[in-house]
């Protein structure tokens, strides 16, 4: 969850990639969507997608990256709250709720720094988890006894999926989109551990394939593999079949190389059975896809020298509609 500066890249992704997919899902499901995530103080994502959204569950920290404290300035929280209140007053949202703190902190503690308990009363249809820093970097927070607790984003994702599984809804089916933005370069040590410990044959093969790459190109591919492997497991464990759309590699705010980000788009659909939900997508099919990136005002495939990768759809709807998950779980009339 970084500082909230908008960039042309973010705008392209928000308007071209995400918005069209959200609109498609909204039309497909036939109702307005419930958003959970980090819209940022200016709520730019929401502003762009508001026509398809009905309710918002938002998280906003006070002074990134400092640990949350009630003594910090409330300005950012209040700025977002005002935006959300305006949307509601203007009839664009039915309602919203806003939690004060880091998402992983609120989700894993079950309450925000003001003591407001986290609750979800219906199926979330858009998760926008814009972490902007390393997926494996823990958030250190003092608990009530003054002990330092470490909260991991991956645990927060898992908990959110658990809540989603346990919720019962009369009006909404459990189909949703998860946008997951993570930093691409905060991840070197964990990557080594991931490579050495994996027992998955497709992953081992993939690691060999990218062995010739060095630096950024290698790290982002390892991170792509790590997210796929981890998040897929979480989805399946909680009875959701995931479909990973092409990953977008883009530059966030700021000038340094460390600000390059990866946006994962994962579509989930409830798929209950005796054991965990199946994943129709093959590991190598996903990993062998090229990354997308933003050039000017367009999304293009990113060609990387030294590795053979296949082209992918630059249109999120096409990417989704051509998946087996869509065919099996979304396109069937019940």
């Amino acid at each position: 969850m970084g500082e909230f500066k908008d960039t042309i890249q973010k705008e392209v992704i928000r308007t071209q990639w995400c918005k069209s997919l959200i609109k498609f899902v909204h039309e497909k499901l036939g109702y307005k969507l419930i958003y959970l995530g980090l819209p940022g103080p200016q709520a730019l994502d929401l502003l762009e997608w508001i026509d398809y959204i009905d309710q918002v569950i938002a998280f906003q920290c006070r002074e990134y990256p400092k640990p949350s404290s009630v003594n910090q300035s409330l300005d950012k929280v209040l700025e977002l709250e005002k935006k959300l209140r305006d949307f509601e007053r203007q009839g664009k949202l039915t309602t919203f709720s806003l939690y004060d703190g880091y998402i992983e902190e609120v989700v894993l503690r079950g309450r925000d720094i003001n003591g407001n308990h986290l609750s979800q009363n219906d199926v979330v249809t858009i998760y926008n988890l814009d972490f902007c820093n390393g997926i494996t970097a823990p958030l250190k927070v003092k608990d009530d006894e003054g002990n330092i607790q470490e909260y991991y984003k991956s645990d927060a994702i898992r908990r959110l999926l658990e809540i989603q599984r346990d919720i019962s809804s009369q009006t909404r089916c459990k189909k949703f989109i998860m946008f997951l933005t993570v930093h691409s370069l905060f991840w070197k040590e964990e990557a080594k551990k991931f490579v050495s410990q994996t027992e998955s044959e497709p992953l081992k093969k993939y690691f060999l394939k990218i062995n010739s790459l060095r630096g950024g190109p290698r790290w982002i591919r390892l991170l792509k593999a790590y997210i796929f492997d981890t998040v897929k497991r979480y989805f399946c464990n909680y009875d959701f079949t995931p479909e990973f759309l092409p990953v977008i590699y883009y530059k966030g705010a700021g000038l340094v190389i460390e600000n390059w980000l990866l946006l994962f788009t994962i579509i989930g659909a409830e798929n209950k059975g005796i054991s965990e939900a199946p994943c129709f997508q093959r590991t190598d099919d996903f990993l062998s896809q090229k990354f997308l990136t933003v050039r000017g005002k367009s999304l293009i495939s990113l060609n990387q020298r030294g590795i053979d990768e296949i082209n992918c759809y630059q249109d999120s709807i096409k990417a989704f509609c051509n998946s087996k998950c869509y065919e099996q779980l979304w396109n069937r009339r019940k």
Partner: protein
Amino acid sequence: MGIKITKHDIGAEIISILTKGMYFDPRDALREYVQNGIDADAQNMEIKIRGNSIVIQDDGCGMDEETMRKVVRVGISDKRPSVDVGFRGIGIYSSFHLCDNLRIYSRSRTDNTPYLLSFDFKKMREILHQQQVERLKSQLTGDQLIDLQSLLEKHIDFKTLGTKEFPKVGTRVEMINLDPNFFKSLTKFEEVADYLRQVVPLHFQSQKFKWSEKIESKVSDVCRKYKAEFELVNLTLQVNTRIEKLYRPYTDECFNGEPLEPHFEEVKIDGYFFGVAWGCLNPVRKKISDRELRGFLIKKQGFAIGKRINIAKYFRRTTYFDRYIGEIMVVHPELLPNAARTDFEISPLRVLFYESLSDIATEYNDIADKYQEYTKGDEQLDESINKLKEIEANISFYAENTEQLVNIIMDVRKIHDLIKGRLERKVLREERTAEAGDVVRSARALEREIQRFISQARERGKVKRKGKTPEVKSIERIKKLPEAKGKELFENPPENLVEIFDILDISVSKQLKTILELIDEKFIQASASNKTEYLSILKNLKDEIEDVLTEE
């Protein structure tokens, strides 16, 4: 000759003093804004508590420009006290100490233009605080203090909005940047919901309270008959992501069994009609367990006036008051609540109202009294039937034991006298009088049989008896007695002495509990020959203690 008053004669501090004095509980502000919505004929209202703000939105008639401008008035209101709940012109400032900014958006059906009225309470409070500090240091004289008009003029803003800014007809109140000290208490869903359920004119939850429809329709009918107005509202409460529609707090579960059918009383005296009361009695002789719901609550136009306990004194016996759940729905247009809504304003009408309340309290007492007697009668009748059957089953064992037979006769006579007494005093349900007659006759016959039996035994004592134990002829009569009916009506009997106190809702300290256990073991258990007898002693003891409490 009158005296000329200028704006400088009314200090700004008055707004702080008034609101602090009138609204002790931060939830009172919610009630005030809900009242405004109801006065604007809203059918549906929402209260949303999240982040650092509270929003109260209604679908009432909204306010046109002129009405919006009048909202800022202090102590002046166009509302009609006879019909509207809020009419003092102060409620709008109820959040003065609660939030930094109050924003009121409204769009009326008539002029269809949205307006925004914005109050900068934070600035106002800062100015008043600064003034106080300077006064303490004697840096300000009374003449230099800011007047109310100037304070309000500088910190209230009014503007017209585009239709997109507030597209719906109705009013939306936003309390922004709440004081964290107050806000914490407002984020506890149950606490806020409980408060609103008590004070706001909500509908009953018909799925959970079997008499919902009957009460709503009866109250409406009575009010219509007297041409009195009475409104209910649909209220949804949201605290963070928890969203629930609120109803009046009464459910069948509040009672120990199915609540008895409500009894209605018109509250009237000397040609004055004040309203209508309803009350449902607990089906067992026990207090309603939820202290917050015990007894009757006075409501004016659906809004609570004072607390339930305040009117307990009008009921002869608090015990009876505590066994009811009910409401006194006041609709008289001239009987006005005081500003703090703790009572009605002092007036001759108020005196009459409380007189009529005494009358209806007597009615409710009599009903509870009668019910208590009836249920006791049921219990005694059932116990008597069971006891007679038990005697019948065991009598042959004592055929040779004249001493025991004499004791049994005493028991039978007791039963006879008890039930006969009830019949004579007419403290038995009509439908059970025939059974009671049977019991009296059977007891009498049984007594005669046993007496004859004793004589025979004594005779035989002189000449040693040979052959079988003689039969007791009254057996057939006893067999004809009905099965005990009322068992399911009553609570399980206490199983030990301490439990009696639990059942009667009397708190017992740890030390006293130990003492009671000792008495139980050394005296009560020791005096009983078997468990049945022990339980029976406990049951009688419970009844006697309960009677003592009732008399109190």
